[in-house]
């Protein structure tokens, strides 16, 4: 296995004609990190990944992998490997030949490359399917073949472009756990592009939230959820109420909002219940405050059913002073 390497982006910029897709972003990713680039479509996360991979030229700035600048190197010489969104398995080649493709390009003889490919297929538990064509595999199996094909090049860093988007929700969660396990076992960095905050939260050591070609916030999932740096981040990751208090816009986590009868809470905000959504362990209550602010309260089921509310009920919401989070920016 290749030695894991640090990745650094230094003021990396991507321009397409007059439009700036990635605007001078800087980021350090330590070796062995599971990093998720998260953001809405068009935020520049895919362009960033493709620049790291070498499938897109860098307009400005440097990409440093290990101790060398890789800006002008072709993809295969960077020490990175990419797993494509729709897996991009060669439809005319068997699973084994797909995995052995890069070895064949290097001119490695057939027995050696088949042996290496079979090792990789064993790693991803796909040995029985070596002779099949990609079209004869399910989505999850194709994903594992794509992973094996990327890993056979012995990458220092693996780049994954929305690797779970083609899978059904049930499979997504299972494959997600597998990806995390592979990353931990291999000890190399995974950079994973996604627009699902749930996926990023579940997988990442480092979440990088992007918007309009810039990094809004980079940090551990917990840091991001507890202290979102901006209104955009708070809205994008969800589970936060954004409201004005004393002339400032602040956030309060929805699970820290409690519902109380109007008479009991002189300090509470009066609000009308607009919706209730039962989710098993929680009930999500949508409310509109007197000043028109929309609020969400996530109430544990036990608490909710001790004093249930219905749509149209007047109630009040309160939270601890300590749960008010002011944005850094």
């Amino acid at each position, binding site marked *: 296995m290749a030695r894991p390497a640090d990745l650094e982006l230094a003021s990396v910029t991507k321009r397409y004609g007059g439009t700036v897709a990635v605007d001078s972003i800087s980021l350090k990713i330590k070796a062995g990190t599971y990093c998720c680039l998260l953001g809405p479509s068009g935020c520049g996360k895919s362009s960033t990944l493709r620049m790291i991979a070498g499938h897109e030229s860098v307009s400005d700035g440097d990409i440093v992998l290990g101790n060398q600048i890789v800006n002008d190197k*072709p993809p*295969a*010489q960077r020490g990175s490997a990419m797993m494509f969104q729709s897996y*991009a398995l060669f439809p*005319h080649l068997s699973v084994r030949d797909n995995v052995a493709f*890069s070895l064949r*390009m*290097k001119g490695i003889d057939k027995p050696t490359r088949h042996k290496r490919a079979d090792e990789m297929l064993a790693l991803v538990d796909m040995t029985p399917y070596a002779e099949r064509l990609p079209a004869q595999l399910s989505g*999850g199996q194709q994903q594992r073949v794509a992973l094996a094909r990327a890993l056979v090049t012995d990458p220092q860093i693996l780049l994954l472009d929305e690797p779970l988007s083609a899978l059904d929700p049930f499979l997504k969660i299972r494959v997600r756990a597998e990806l995390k396990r592979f990353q931990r076992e291999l000890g190399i960095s995974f950079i994973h592009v996604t627009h699902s905050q749930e996926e990023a939260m579940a997988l990442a050591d480092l979440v990088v939230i992007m918007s309009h070609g810039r990094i809004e916030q980079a940090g551990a999932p917990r840091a991001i959820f507890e202290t979102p740096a901006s209104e955009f981040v708070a809205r994008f990751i969800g589970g936060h109420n954004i409201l004005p208090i004393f002339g400032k816009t602040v956030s309060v986590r929805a699970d820290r909002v409690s519902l109380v009868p109007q008479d009991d809470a002189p300090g509470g905000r009066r609000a009308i219940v607009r919706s209730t959504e039962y989710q098993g362990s929680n009930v999500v209550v949508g409310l509109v405050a007197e000043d028109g602010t929309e609020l969400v309260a996530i109430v544990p089921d036990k608490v909710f059913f001790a004093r249930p509310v219905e749509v149209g009920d007047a109630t009040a919401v309160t939270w601890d002073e300590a749960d008010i989070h002011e944005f850094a920016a």
Partner: protein
Amino acid sequence: MTTVEETAVLAPSAAPAAPGPKAATRRPTKLPGETPAFVPYLQALPLALILGFFLLVPIITIVVVSFWDYDFARVIPDFILTNYQDVLGSWVTWKTYLNTLKYTAIVWAITLSIGFTVAYFLAFYIRTATMQTVLFLVCTVPFLTSNIIRMISWIPFLGRNGLMNGFLQSIGLVDQPVEWLLYSDFAVVLAMVHLYTLFMVTPIFNSLVRIDRALIEAARDNGASAFQTLVHVVIPLAKPGIAIGSIFVVTLIMADFSTVQVMSGGQSASVALMMRNQMSLLQYPAAAANAVVLLVVVLLMVAAILRVVDIRKEL
């Protein structure tokens, strides 16, 4: 890891399978509003009639006539094998077939290389779909005139006192006019390439535009050079288009008589030309026997192409 997925796939299919045997024993009952049984046949009738009249009947006629007898003025219904003995026993037939196959091989190779190059350029180097369509239509412009006109237009260009010879002499490359430019195998091949290249471009282009661009990137990501990508990814995926184009070109050349006649100035023969000559001598049964042999040869060639490439994916 696989078991979870597979049971998930199996589970739903197991449930509807249960009432299967019961449903099979029950006689099918007609639902109100269901179409009567003869309707599908009625729907298939127009196409069946067209194929019957324009394909089946002519072929059967040719096969039947190929066993008839003839003299200088009449055809006589009969069942004789003389026509086939004449066709297969004559060295002229073999020589003519060899000549036609030679044209086929040369023109196939040239149209394939030109056709693939043009299609590759259109599919991979032209970025917008609009521009692709425009350039593709440009390729079809020569087809606005008839085959004969396009062929004949080569004559003033290639002739003894034509533009090409004039040019070569004026730059001092040759002293005497080049004789082999016109009325030669060169002229036949040139005209055929001109006439048939588009039949190669179209299906190959169609195959190439369907190749997912991510595959090209994946090849590059795996360290393939541009040439390796071409050989290991693009050409294998273009095979169905290459096969369809090859079928077009091969069948067209095998059946060609006008190009060979005009461009060789009557000095070369082709199988179809041989048949035409027999017909002009009213030797219809002989021509019919020749046609049956040609049909079999061409079908064998098409079968050979289909054995190499599975084109069902394309259709």
